């Protein structure tokens, strides 16, 4: 067990390191001179020199990378060029929206997808199964931002149950805050659930044919008990893989959905930063988002070992 985790952890750290190098190369080295990129080519020479000094561009690239990374590791993300406040302050504020949104959406995805997938597999080749497959095929084709717009159209324009966007903040109380995250989460989850339901269905169908399922039935377990105790956990193994991959899509999706619903999260922050050419913020936020994806994939790897004891085979 510990060896397995150690190996995964090494991969995890290496991926994080690689991601940080990629971000640094693209956003600091590729533009040639970030000071020009921020100010534009017709910048005032003295302002340009001042910015170069402020960003520490006189130093060699390796030193700049090291000081950026050591800063990030100690919680010092640098100073935003446009807001003149520490990036960490900006980020923490936005994370309080983006993380709950992603978690709610992921929870919805998992619940809906596993429910639908199980239902479809249990009603294989019947109307219910067919319905789930059509939902899945359609759901994969629907852009999440358009689905978000449709939700606004239905629930705020016609029914008036929700506001069409914005976030009151957690200070406004748990319910108003959650309410404003509900439609965005549904918009994010529906598309992902469509994909995951399909994976769940085919995985469950495959597992139902296994010999140990017949053994369980021969022991006298009912169909439902067999499905629950013997099929589900085995069927979840491939489902968890796809879930890990989906989290990356979900996080990318929050960037889009935050713009649909005017939610002040990381996605909005990075857009404003692009509009303001605030490369410091862009660099930090992109690294943060990439790191979140990598962390989730690490967690998924560990989840494997918990679900599938065969992966822990070398522990003795």
């Amino acid at each position, binding site marked *: 067990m510990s060896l397995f985790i150690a190996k995964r952890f090494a991969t995890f750290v290496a991926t994080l390191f690689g991601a940080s190098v990629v971000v640094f190369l693209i956003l600091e080295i590729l533009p040639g001179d970030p000071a020009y990129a921020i100010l534009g080519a017709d910048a005032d020479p003295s302002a340009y020199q001042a910015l170069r000094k402020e960003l520490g561009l006189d130093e060699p690239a390796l030193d700049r990378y090291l000081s950026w990374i050591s800063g990030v590791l100690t919680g010092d993300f640098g100073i935003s060029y446009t807001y003149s406040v520490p990036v960490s302050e900006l980020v923490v504020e936005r994370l309080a929206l983006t993380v709950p949104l992603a978690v709610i959406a992921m929870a919805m995805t998992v619940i809906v997808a596993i429910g639908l997938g199980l239902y479809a597999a249990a009603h294989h080749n019947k109307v219910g199964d067919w319905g789930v497959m059509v939902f899945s095929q359609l759901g994969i084709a629907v*852009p999440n931002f358009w689905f978000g717009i449709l939700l606004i159209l239905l629930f705020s324009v016609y029914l008036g149950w929700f506001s069409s966007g914005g976030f009151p903040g957690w200070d406004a109380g748990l319910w108003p805050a959650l309410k404003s995250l509900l439609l965005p989460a549904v918009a994010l989850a529906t598309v992902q659930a469509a994909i995951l339901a399909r994976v769940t269905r085919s995985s469950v169908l495959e597992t139902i044919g296994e010999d140990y399922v017949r053994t369980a039935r021969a022991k006298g377990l009912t169909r439902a008990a067999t499905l629950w105790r013997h099929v589900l956990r085995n069927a979840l193994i491939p489902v968890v893989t796809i879930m890990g991959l989906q989290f990356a899509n979900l996080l990318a999706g929050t960037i889009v959905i935050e713009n649909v619903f005017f939610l002040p999260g990381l996605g909005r922050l990075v857009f404003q930063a692009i509009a303001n050419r605030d490369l410091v913020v862009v660099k930090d936020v992109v690294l943060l988002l990439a790191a979140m994806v990598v962390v989730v994939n690490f967690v998924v790897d560990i989840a494997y070992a918990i679900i599938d004891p065969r992966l822990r085979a070398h522990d003795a």
Partner: protein
Amino acid sequence: MTSRTPSDLFLLALRHRNLLLGGALSTLIILLAVISLLWTPHSAYELDVANKLKPPSSTHWLGTDHFGRDVASLIMVGAQNSLVVGFVAVGIGMAAGVLLGLWASAQRGWIEELIMRLSDFTFAFPAILSAIMITAILGPGAVNSILAIGIFNIPVFARVTRGSANAIWAREFVLAARAAGKGRIRITFEHVLPNILSVIIVQATIFFAIAILAEAALSYLGLGTQPPQPSWGRMLNEAQTFLYLSPHLALFPGLVIVVSVLGFNMLGDGLRDWLDPRLSRARLSGYAQ
């Protein structure tokens, strides 16, 4: 073989319904784009503010937008944009990815390891994230969104190519070719590539659908195609401002995205069932949005 009766043909069509329906929907979208090169009901660029935000009518089948432009014409011209971005982005991803995958498979050893580990990193950067980085340094535009989607596609194709190519390298006829003294490069292009072509084509079709979705998202965010060039994502962005006044504006561009993604997805499914039934299950892991 005897000639086929109509009911035989019906059964055949039923078995290949994905291929037929997907092919029909994809053709429809491609036709929209091609026809728009020669003819559109109205100009997609001329402004007619007097007729702005009109609901669908006999003159403007799908109504007009806030500048009075004809929505049907915008959608037709927008199809060009989606298809071009899709073709070029998938083309970049496919060309570079297939070459990298073939190289990794032919060399094995540390080169394969390096290529595959590098492609692992890109899973940390969904298309939108790399598009954000590229836009941050180069500014928004169609070319940059093509770049972002294309770069994102490279490791995907590299993985698929390497996996299938490795299986071919293990086959007897490759061994025979090596025994005959053929070099790695020759074997790669004479034996390996032709045998994995169907896998690559299927993958390309499915990633074409994903590219259309990604392009729409980028245009919606303002990172992709810039006005006045019409694009479906951009139309939805503008429609959102007028959601209370003219909800129909938000409907049609979205529907046409769904139709084209559905079409190319089903075409990919159908091609896969037709070309290589064994692949049927190895697909969903490639989804990204």
